[in-house]
């Protein structure tokens, strides 16, 4: 039984890496989100540890305990301190990843069950099916729309996620530190083919931006 439990650990941890993992960020915005995730994990671990210690004490022989220390010291003030620190961290990260200041704008249009992207090209705006082209090393604002139901744009290695809502245009900032290909997906259940509503983000070397319109999957 113990061996079986230990054998599952690598399987579970395998989910912490890969192209769709928030924990392997490839840009400053995703890096901030990953730090926040670790901070929240640390806070949750501290609170869980406190509860486990209390439970363990309950199994021991009866003894005199300082109730005030546990109820107020740990139960109220310690918990409140952990929540306050993590809340402050979340606010700080939240402000940093907002689309403040100028950025290149691209469009992402969702429908059941595919994505159409528009980015600036050498000869004007260029449309791509399932592939978003961006320059590496600079912030990019994705303007997100939908023509049918609610979808959600998410490239875990480059930034946060943002809903695509019919009748609205939402803005999400992403950034890739290095040129490369990153995977994205629809993060809001949108119908039978939701799971296959994937796309790619190709971050180009800034020297090769904007890309040529003859690039595969693109049309001017």
């Amino acid at each position, binding site marked *: 039984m113990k061996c079986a439990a230990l054998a599952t650990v690598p399987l579970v941890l395998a989910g912490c890496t890969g192209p769709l993992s928030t924990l392997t960020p490839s840009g400053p915005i995703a890096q901030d989100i990953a730090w926040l995730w670790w901070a929240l994990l640390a806070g949750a671990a501290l609170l869980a540890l406190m509860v486990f210690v209390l439970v363990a004490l309950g199994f021991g022989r009866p003894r005199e305990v300082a109730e005030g220390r546990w109820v107020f010291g740990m139960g109220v003030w310690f918990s409140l301190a952990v929540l306050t620190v993590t*809340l402050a961290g979340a*606010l700080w990260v*939240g*402000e940093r990843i*907002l689309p403040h200041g100028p950025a290149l704008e691209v469009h992402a249009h969702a429908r059941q069950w595919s994505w159409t992207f528009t980015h600036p090209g050498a000869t004007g705006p260029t449309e791509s099916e399932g592939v978003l082209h961006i320059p590496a090393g600079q912030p990019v604002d994705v303007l997100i729309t939908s023509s049918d139901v609610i979808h959600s744009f998410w490239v875990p290695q480059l930034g946060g996620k943002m809903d695509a809502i019919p009748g609205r245009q939402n803005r999400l900032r992403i950034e890739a530190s290095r040129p490369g290909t990153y995977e994205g997906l629809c993060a809001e259940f949108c119908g039978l083919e939701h799971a296959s509503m994937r796309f790619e983000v190709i971050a180009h070397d800034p020297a090769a931006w904007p890309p040529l319109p003859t690039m595969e999957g693109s049309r001017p």
Partner: protein
Amino acid sequence: MRRVGGMVWLAWLIAGPTAWAAAFSVAYGLHGLGCELGWPALSLGPVSLQRVAIALPSLAAILLCLVLLARVSTALGPEAGIPRLGLWIGLVATLYTMAPVLVATSC
């Protein structure tokens, strides 16, 4: 001193958390409405209409908790202990959840 029990005592007990919950719900609704109607761009003195609209329900809840705290002993006598704690919880919870509203980007 007369003893107060039953539903009246229960109402005093949940008054603080209820004030917080009501303020939070109203602020949540006004936040979405304000973003849609462009309230962040409208100034009311040094702050935007958006911040005022979100902060007002919380200020009302804080005021309500303070008034009830001043009257809880008179109203409940020896039964005032736990309801007083509930009012303090409502007051602190409202301050805690309102604080980010004053500094964070709204829309």
